[in-house]
């Protein structure tokens, strides 16, 4: 039985307006598109107001007057919209960029680079240790990682006596990346499939009451 809930009806209408893009660009899709934009902007503002109340609570409560500085810097960052006064936003932007880059780079060094290098080295040392079946998997993992990294980092050509074998190395790395992309595409399509399921279920089950 069709749902009497007005929110379910709104949800169904917006879903159908969005899917109408498959037929071609039309006014219904434009309506859905602008609704989306408006709600995102509105939500950002509402979230911003409540977050400001939380972030500057110690200032309101008189516990930490130093927060006046980030308050002023935050107001300065809004000036990035106006070309004439955009330079005012440079200092708070510099703080945002510097702090976030500093925090990010230490994790990149620690986890992404050194962590993976250590994992490859320790796996390389354990290829011939333990179960041969696991050893084959480990060998594949190590060899594929090294060749794929080689492809990423050394994709320039040069003429020398070693260029031929290195070219084979690079080509193998390219195929390793194709394997990864194939696996990723398979998984990504399952993810999008789930989203399509959710959208269609909202129409068929929540709105029309089937299933």
């Amino acid at each position, binding site marked *: 039985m069709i749902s009497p809930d007005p929110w379910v009806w709104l949800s169904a209408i917006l879903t159908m307006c969005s899917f109408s893009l*498959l037929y071609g660009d039309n006014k219904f899709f434009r309506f859905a598109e602008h609704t989306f934009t408006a709600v995102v902007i509105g*939500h*950002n503002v509402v*979230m911003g107001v*409540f*977050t400001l*109340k*939380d*972030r500057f*609570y*110690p200032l309101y*409560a008189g516990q930490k007057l130093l927060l006046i500085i980030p308050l002023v810097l935050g107001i300065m960052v809004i000036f990035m919209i106006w070309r004439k006064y955009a330079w005012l936003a440079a200092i708070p932007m510099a703080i945002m960029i510097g*702090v*976030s880059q500093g*925090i*990010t780079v*230490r*994790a*990149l060094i*620690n*986890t*992404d680079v050194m*962590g*993976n290098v*250590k*994992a490859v080295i320790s*796996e390389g040392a354990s290829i011939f240790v333990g179960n041969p079946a696991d050893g084959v998997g480990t060998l594949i*993992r190590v060899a594929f990682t090294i060749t794929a990294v080689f492809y990423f980092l050394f994709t320039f050509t040069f003429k020398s006596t070693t260029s031929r074998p290195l070219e084979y190395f690079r080509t193998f790395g390219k195929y390793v990346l194709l394997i*990864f992309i194939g*696996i*990723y595409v*398979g*998984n*990504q*399509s*399952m*993810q999008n*499939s*789930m*989203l*399509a*399921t*959710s959208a*269609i*279920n909202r*129409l*068929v*089950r929540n709105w029309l009451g*089937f*299933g």
Partner: protein
Amino acid sequence: MKIPELQARHVWAIVLIGYLIPAFIPLGMSPVISSATQTVYDTIQALPPNSIVMCGGGGVFAFDLESSAGLIAALKQMSKLNVKVVFYPMWIETMQFSKYCVDSARVDEKYGGPWKYGRDYVILPYIPGNEVGLVSFLNDVKKTVSTDYAGTPISQLPIMDSLNNYKDISLWICAQWDGVTILRYVTGEYGIKVMWFAQSSAYSAFGPYMQVYPGKIYITNGALGGAQYEKLNGIKGLGHAALDSNVVFTLMFIGFLVLGNLTMLYGNKKVEK
């Protein structure tokens, strides 16, 4: 024999019909439990009483919907254990996602569940800055957040009395797209175990982190992992609904792949404009 090239609209029509079938007629597929999902379940089940579990990350709600199946089942599981849960919203939609999961799990006392807000679970407000906020929180909770989502000072919430920094956190559960930030800092810098109910594509892309920190990170695979977790907890939710359409999707995938290659082999030379 010549096989004509299908137009895009024909393909879309077939896809739409394909997805409508399981929506109208549930196929009743049942998930098969994988070792990764079982490990996540056992890890949560083995949590000592009064453990503090953080649930959070940064993500877009629409993407996180895929992994919400696992998180909702995990919340139901944790409501039966004597653990405390603190939700940590790292992106602007995560607070709404946390509320969605809590309401869907029906663990709050207003739905007849065992949890009381403030005593058993707390939802923090949006903490901006992504990894910056996360590091600040893990170093000093009270300095980073002063109130909960509703503006209540955290000094008035019993659960926050025993949460001062990363040392008080037993486990971190992430059901968001940006689980990588959680892995890098929560496990990488502070050594806390992370259970990530990841999206399907995230598993294939970020699996290396499980090798970097073996035994500390476990990742489940998308909606299918969520369905498996639901089965372990004896519930049927979004994960199970996704299984039926996944079967149809697989058949369509194979069908279009075979048809496309047969068209290439036997098709006419005209190319659709």
